[in-house]
């Protein structure tokens, strides 16, 4: 006779591995029913928004870069663009192109790391990138070289790969010389070919048969694969200019996480940001080599299998090398490094596409250019609720019959699809002050 009230069972992944930052998973089960799934983020809040208040606007790019060592450009770029909106600064087309190039460098280094050392081991039943390196040394070395080229580009444009220092409101502090960028062309030519080979390797991985009808959210631009400019679009057809972002998306606090979780308004449903969302919404705008590679491997959109995000990352690396190579070949420095502007009181916001997905910043500044208010919504915060929803779907009766260790491992693999950056997401803590 079936027990009508089976005893509870709890699956714990005490520390998520191969992700940035510190988090854990708790799954509460009763019989074959999933009672609760929590992506528990216990990394202490880092309070970046509060740290920015009262600081001069020129500090913002340097401070926000510290939110993440893997994707500092995303924070810097979004911050300077938001402040440029506040000061009504128009950057030149040359600066805009260099900024796209810089972002390509960050996509390359971040995606190459995740593809080869963080997620790929999951598909071979291996515990780590070290084990993968023993079995697939050529592929791992190729991935490391791809990553190195991304870092080299960031060094050339930003002064250094980790927390670059060259991006400024209005442009750059210094434009790179033509020889500095042209020196990267041979590496980018190699990288374009190597990244296509990497995609072919990834496309042959054994992907789990797991599909969800996701609500994808990404930027979209009529003329390019959106990275630093464009409307915010959703797979259900919503299209909004970025200043309306907060009208359609909100952050909420959940008790089990020091990071805020984002939901779509008005219904409050989770949504999906990142390479898979971008590819599904913008495939036609990929650079030709990436589009050709997607066709060659038979990668169809819309793709609703989150494990295929590793292929989406690979295709974006191909795109970044192709676009980067075009920019490098055509680069002739001219014009000012920075646009002139007058500091004034105002408010500005911006969205860009970080490696892990859409990122939103909004700032208010006073007449002296000091920050009065800051809001930063990183991609991992936006994906958290979706991750929890995915886990609920993953935990079907067939999987629940497995030993706890196996269930935990499958949950971890699913989380790694999102390449979560927990350190990025724990930048804020909502404080309730009770006065008696």
């Amino acid at each position, binding site marked *: 006779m079936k027990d009508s009230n089976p005893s509870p069972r709890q699956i714990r992944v005490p520390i998520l*591995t*191969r*992700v*940035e930052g510190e988090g854990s998973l708790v799954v509460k089960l009763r019989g074959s029913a999933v009672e609760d799934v929590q992506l528990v983020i216990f990394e202490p809040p880092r309070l970046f928004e509060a740290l920015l208040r009262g600081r001069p606007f020129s500090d913002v790019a340097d401070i926000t870069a510290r939110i993440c*060592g*893997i994707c500092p450009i995303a924070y810097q770029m979004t911050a300077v663009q938001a402040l440029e909106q506040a000061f009504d600064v128009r950057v030149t087309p040359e600066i805009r192109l260099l900024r796209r190039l810089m972002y390509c460098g960050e996509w390359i280094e971040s995606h190459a*790391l995740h593809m080869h*050392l*963080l997620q790929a081991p999951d598909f071979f039943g291996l515990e*780590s*990138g*070290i084990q993968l*390196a*023993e079995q697939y*040394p050529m592929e*791992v*070395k190729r991935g*490391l070289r791809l*990553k*190195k080229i991304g*870092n*080299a580009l960031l060094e050339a444009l930003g002064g250094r*790969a*980790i*927390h670059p220092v060259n991006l400024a409101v209005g442009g750059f502090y210094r434009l790179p010389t033509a020889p500095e960028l042209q020196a990267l062309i041979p590496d980018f030519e190699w990288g374009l070919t190597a990244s296509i080979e990497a995609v072919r390797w990834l496309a042959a991985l054994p992907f789990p048969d797991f599909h969800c009808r996701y609500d994808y959210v990404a930027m979209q631009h009529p003329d390019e694969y959106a990275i630093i400019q464009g409307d915010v679009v959703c797979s259900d057809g919503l299209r909004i200019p970025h200043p309306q972002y907060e009208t359609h998306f909100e952050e909420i606090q959940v008790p089990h996480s020091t990071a805020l979780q984002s939901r779509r308004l008005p219904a409050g449903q989770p949504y999906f940001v990142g390479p898979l969302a971008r590819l599904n919404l913008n495939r036609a705008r990929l650079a030709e080599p990436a589009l050709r590679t997607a066709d060659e491997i038979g990668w169809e959109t819309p793709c609703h299998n989150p494990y295929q995000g590793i292929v989406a990352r690979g295709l974006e690396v191909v795109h970044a090398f192709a676009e980067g190579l075009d920019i490098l070949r055509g680069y002739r420095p001219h014009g000012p490094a920075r646009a002139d502007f007058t500091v004034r009181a105002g408010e500005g916001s911006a969205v860009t596409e970080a490696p892990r997905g859409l990122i939103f910043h909004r700032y208010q500044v006073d007449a002296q250019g000091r920050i009065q208010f800051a809001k930063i919504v990183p991609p991992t915060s936006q994906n958290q609720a979706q991750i929890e929803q995915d886990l609920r779907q993953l935990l079907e009766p067939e999987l629940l019959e497995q030993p706890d260790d196996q269930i935990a491992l499958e949950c971890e693999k699913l989380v790694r699809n999102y390449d979560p950056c927990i*350190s990025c997401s724990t930048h804020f803590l909502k404080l309730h002050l009770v006065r008696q």
Partner: protein
Amino acid sequence: MNPAACDRTRPGKLIVGIGSPHGLDQVGWRVAEGLRNRLNDDWQIRLAAVPLDLLDWLEPLQELHLIDASVDLDAPDDWAPCQRLDWPHPWIAELPCRATHDFNLPRVLQLADSLHLLPPRVTLWVIPVGDDFGASPTEPLGWGPQAVAGLESADSDVGRRGDHAWGLEQRCQAAATVIGRELSPAGNRPTTQTAAGPPERQNHA
């Protein structure tokens, strides 16, 4: 200039300081920087913010020396300004390291080893800094009498200054002196520089 510095066909020698500009985490960088004047042009010195940076720099090398701070070095001779661990010393895998994406220093070295990227000689120099991570460089770090006595016997150039509370600067100088002497045998040092003298005493009122 040393002719060897121009010989790009010869595998190089690389020193990497690991850390950041902040608090006690800056120790790795400062010790590495402190070696610039103590070694000749054969040596390349780089600063890494995360151990993963290393993987970008492992072109053919003769030697790789890594310098990092440790808040919890439990070694028999932990009075020394630095602890030398030659790869693959079993302690390296046990070091209490943390880093982005789980790629701490031991794991990065393991990965590089798996890919046969490591040079014949890899040495990790660990600088014990106590557990007050984030302390100001001007604050005394509180080496005890045993540590100072040990340091005096280890290197006569790094003298005792009366109190036992050395600041971060002195400790970095001490470590750089010891490492510099190890890496730069007599006759292989810069001709214009001498080994560092005793560190200046700081007033800790």
